[in-house]
């Protein structure tokens, strides 16, 4: 499903060139659960952004479902993000002015789903994450764990084949973190690929495969 071939990503900060990702090559099959570990600054988030088509590699090849993503236009990449990829972020990244329901509807808004269907599917997604009764609360009226569950509902509402989570438990207490991870695993259980970036060994342990990164390179791969 995912093939990375000698992918590098560098950018300039002031006068110096930062090599965030260097010569990364790996494959991830459909339905796999992978954790990417490493200290901060090791390039794991940059790698995740490349996988999610938010960022482009400076060199190397990225094939997603047998298509070379490097060849795609901006519009095609946003189409890919819309239909194939769901994001979960450390800081939830919900729109504060929208309710939980509104936030979950957001991807469908841009996909042009009809309002009636949108409402129904968002309600279903919120029920699946156990927040049916919080649908009309705004993010500031929800706890951290609840916000992350709303974010998960938003990430899966378009039924993507790839779920990317960037430190999904980084801002949560132990029990909420446990809850959120269980939910992520449950929701990606039916054939979705789940890639979690974390520096928490406990979170990483839950994955079947762990990729360790340091200084932009893969230093270890473990099953």
């Amino acid at each position, binding site marked *: 499903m995912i093939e990375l071939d000698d992918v590098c990503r560098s950018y300039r900060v002031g006068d110096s060139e930062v090599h965030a990702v260097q010569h990364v090559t790996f494959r991830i099959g459909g339905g796999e659960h992978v954790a990417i570990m490493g200290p901060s600054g090791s390039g794991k*988030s*940059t790698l995740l*952004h490349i996988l*999610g088509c*938010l*960022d482009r590699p400076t060199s190397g090849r990225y094939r997603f479902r047998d298509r070379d993503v490097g060849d795609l236009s*901006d*519009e095609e990449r*946003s*189409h890919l*993000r*819309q*239909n194939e990829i769901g*994001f979960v*972020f450390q800081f939830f*990244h*919900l*729109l*504060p*002015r*929208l309710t939980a329901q*509104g936030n979950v509807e*957001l*991807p469908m*808004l*841009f*996909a*042009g789903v009809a*309002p009636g269907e949108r409402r129904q599917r968002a309600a279903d997604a919120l029920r699946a994450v156990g927040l049916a009764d919080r649908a009309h609360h705004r993010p500031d009226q929800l706890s951290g764990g609840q916000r992350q569950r709303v974010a998960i509902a*938003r990430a899966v509402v*378009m039924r993507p084949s790839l779920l990317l989570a960037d430190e999904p438990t980084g801002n949560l207490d132990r029990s909420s973190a446990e809850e959120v991870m269980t939910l992520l695993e449950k929701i990606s259980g039916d054939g979705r690929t789940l890639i979690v970036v974390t520096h928490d060994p406990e979170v990483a342990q839950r994955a079947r495969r762990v990729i360790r990164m340091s200084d932009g390179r893969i230093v270890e791969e473990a099953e």
Partner: protein
Amino acid sequence: MRFADVAGFAVGALRGHRLRTSLSVAGVAVGIAAVVALTALGEGARSYVTREFTSLGSNLLIVIPGKVETTGVMPFGGVTHDLTLDDARAVSRRVPGVVRVASIAIGTEAVHWQDRSRSVPVLGVTASYQKIRQLEISGGRFLAPGEGEQGGNQLVLGAKAAHELFRGTNPLGRVVRVGSWRFRVIGVMAPKGRALGFDFDDLVLIPVKTAMQMFNRTSLFRILAEVESSGRLTPAKEGVLRLLEQRHRAEDVTVVTQDAVLSAFSSILGVLTLTLAGLASVSLSVAGVGIMNVMLVAVSERRREIGILKAVGAGNRQVLAAFLAEAVVLSTVGGALGVGLGALAVRIFVAFYPTFPASPPAWSIAAAMAVAVAVGVGFGVWPARCATRLDPVAALTGR
């Protein structure tokens, strides 16, 4: 993405920033209100002048003695023949299309009755002057046909002159003195008010021939000729010129049509309206820069939101549409508000000056709205493009 969703998203975003939204809406509203109010005043001035002219009679030819031209040899601009009552009679009889003709002589003199006196314009006229200037009589009668040319001692008082001199006494049949001449009051005019700055209430009317003798004039001040229809104005004007040229053996009169004067005024006032609209549009473009400012602030304040939108699959075109829609909603709401505000301002103005017929012309309302939307689109494009160019990773990580 559906149109209604774009609009809904934009409105939602604007409602989320109430203060900023209301300030920029106010900016546009003031600009549009200025356009509407100022063009209303300009148009009002125009229709005011038009009304003043038509109250002075329509389809009028005005014959003025003398001709404005540059002459070379003769030091005093050539010989000017007098404009006489015979000329007036000839115009009335021999120019086709002319319905009635009035001759005018004018001067200022003190009118005395008992111990009161009042210095007023004294207008020597003929009977048809009443019809041509659309004057009404409130008591007694106007000069009868022929009386003006014979030069009797009949006198008609303007409404204000009658009130000032007689103070409630019935002036009809009384004898008044104008200078050293004695007249009998045969009528009092109904109030007419001012037209083009001339007060039709504060004057006296006497036979034109008497006036010429009194003021020692050999020439008439003006001849007014009313023409049957506006279509015959030009040929009648030619006819009058030719006739008088024949009679005077020189082209020594000037004939103007009242419509020519009117249209000159009208085009001057049209330019005035455009100038006012131009001034108002300056304030509108200031409002546009305000919108641009607000939207740029919105883009930089909402970097994270833009990043989120891109992460959940919004394409560049959709982000562009969403931010452009915000600018357009801002300016449209501001425009609608401004039209209301402008109309209100005009109403208040009219409440204070009821004689001034100011009302916003339909074209200015339509133009103001169109400009408002154009301002929204025009000044919204750049910020919206800034939003689409934003790197989603940078926006999300706050880099």
